[in-house]
């Protein structure tokens, strides 16, 4: 049975990789199996992890869960065309709650924490003093400040303001360049994992 599983996994892995050549029947078959099984899997997971574990088992302890359950029930009214419009209420609730929660989170993390973290000395006797440290602090403070200017929408990027915005976008792009390389390396590990499966578990070429 194990061998059958490994052969099936290898067949589907190669089927998905065949997309690199072109769209083909093998890819379509692998794609359909993947989508069908994963959709079914997620239905089961969501039922047991959410409805059963988070609501049904705890429904006696926390009365607020019934509010969530009621909103969930209202969502299902979409299935009845005549009163389907009621499903907009829970959607509106989710939209509003998400916007409110994220608004405060963004304010706390993107404005307050980052601003505080950017406050640092540029020179002085107690400053550790090396040219490298000074440059590091200058880049951090200047890059953050100019980055803020780039995202300022109320003024045209012209003159000194425009130059600062250009420094900001350059800083952002250099950061993205570094992140690109870093992330590509981590993605390579995904590919290596799959190749390892094919060569070790399936073909047995690696011991």
């Amino acid at each position, binding site marked *: 049975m194990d061998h059958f599983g490994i052969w099936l996994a290898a067949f589907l892995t190669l089927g998905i990789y065949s*997309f690199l050549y072109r*769209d083909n029947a093998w890819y*379509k078959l*692998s*794609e359909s199996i*993947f*989508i069908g099984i*994963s*959709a079914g899997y997620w239905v089961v997971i969501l039922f047991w992890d959410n409805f059963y574990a988070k609501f049904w088992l705890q429904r006696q302890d926390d009365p607020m869960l019934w509010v969530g359950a009621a909103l969930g029930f209202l*969502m299902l009214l*979409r299935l009845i065309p005549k009163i389907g419009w009621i*499903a*907009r209420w829970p*959607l509106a609730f*989710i*939209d509003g*709650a*998400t*916007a409110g929660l*994220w*608004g*405060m989170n*963004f*304010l*706390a993390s993107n*404005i*307050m*924490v*980052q*601003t*505080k973290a*950017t*406050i*640092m*000395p*540029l*020179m*002085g*006797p*107690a*400053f550790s003093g090396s040219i490298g440290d000074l440059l590091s602090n200058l880049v951090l*403070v200047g890059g*953050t*400040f100019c980055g*803020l200017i780039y*995202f*300022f*929408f*109320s*003024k045209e*990027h012209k003159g000194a303001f425009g130059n600062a915005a250009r420094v900001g976008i350059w800083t*952002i*792009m250099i*950061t*993205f*360049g570094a*992140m*690109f390389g870093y*992330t590509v390396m981590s993605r390579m590990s*995904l590919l290596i994992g799959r190749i390892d499966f094919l060569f070790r578990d399936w073909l047995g070429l690696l011991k």
Partner: protein
Amino acid sequence: MSLSQRKSFSVFPAIQFIIIIALTFVLSVNSFAQEATDDTTSVTSVIIAPPTNLLVEDFEYDDGEKLNLIWTPSIDDQPQVGKVTGYQVFRVTNDDVTTKIAELMPGANNFTDQELDKDSTYSYYVTAIANGAEASSVTTSPISPQREWVNFGLTNLFVIALIIGGAIFYFIEMGKRGKKLFVRKIAGLEAVDDAIGRATEMGRPILYIPGIHDMDDVQTLASLTILGRVAEQIADYDIKIRMPVARSLVMTAARETIKASYQAAGRPDAYSDDMVSYITDEQFGYVAAVDGIMVREKPATVFLLGAFFAESLILAETGNHVGAIQIAGTARPAQLPFFIAACDFTLIGEELFAASAYLSNEPKALGALKGQDVGKIIAAAAIIAGVLLETVIQLTDSESAATLLGYLRQAFTT
């Protein structure tokens, strides 16, 4: 027997004797040392002092589910020479059930007990552990965790939110009164009209991908708001839109959004639920399906707006491969480099959230956008002031600058 023979005969037993004596001495010393070590172990395992001054207090500003414990470590818990090897924290509930809730390293003097019930009472004691010995603190009086309805620790956050909120209302009011609100051009959003026009000319569909997160991600909300504007134009031009999604709630919300846009454009008859289809919650299952849609339907325009993860480059590369004009946007820094590399236009972070207001050009939306700029002015001003004060303190040791900097840091502490 010769003399030499007699000599060697008499010397050999003497050497044997010396070796035996030496071995006996070594073994006896070793054995004594072993006994001494055992004695030492037995002495240290018996006597250790318990932790003292155990105090339990309510965790400030929570939902009534945490208690803070703090104590003075055992006097035998000293760096390097200490006998204490760790601490165990015990909880006693109001029905006298005792549970070990934590094992801590030597030197530990606090612990936060979590997931408690605010309607129950709890007592605690802490035990210092040594090799085979333990000593417990006194058990504390029963206490219940308290729920606080208002978190006064976030007053500064509230004040800043109030200032930004006030600025948003001010600019909205200005916009309503007819004052022209200027917002600079954003290249990625200027291209939206061209991208939709291109699909119209080519007679090919538009593919709209809202990311893989659910409706509880603000990037998905921003994406659906942009979708509303885009769908109005699509309805006007009578182009086909295809929107595969990875979350059922997003499917419902997207259908409502597109339906409303088609109604606003005076084309409710052209709307169909089939425009939005649920694929699967599984990240790469969704990617496999979207890639298939791209190569089979060859969309003229692809919008990738929302929360993206490892799938971003796969989707953007496939879109690029089929020759679609691509407008992407996300607030996830790790994915933006891929979009910049593979897409024609990319909305970076804040630009994604500004897009809806920008596209609508309505005073209310633009007022909100300008109000947010006030937040950026506050942050920039605080950075300049903070860096100057920090540098002045380093150069002059000024106490007044230190006091001001303290206030500034406090204002931005959450």
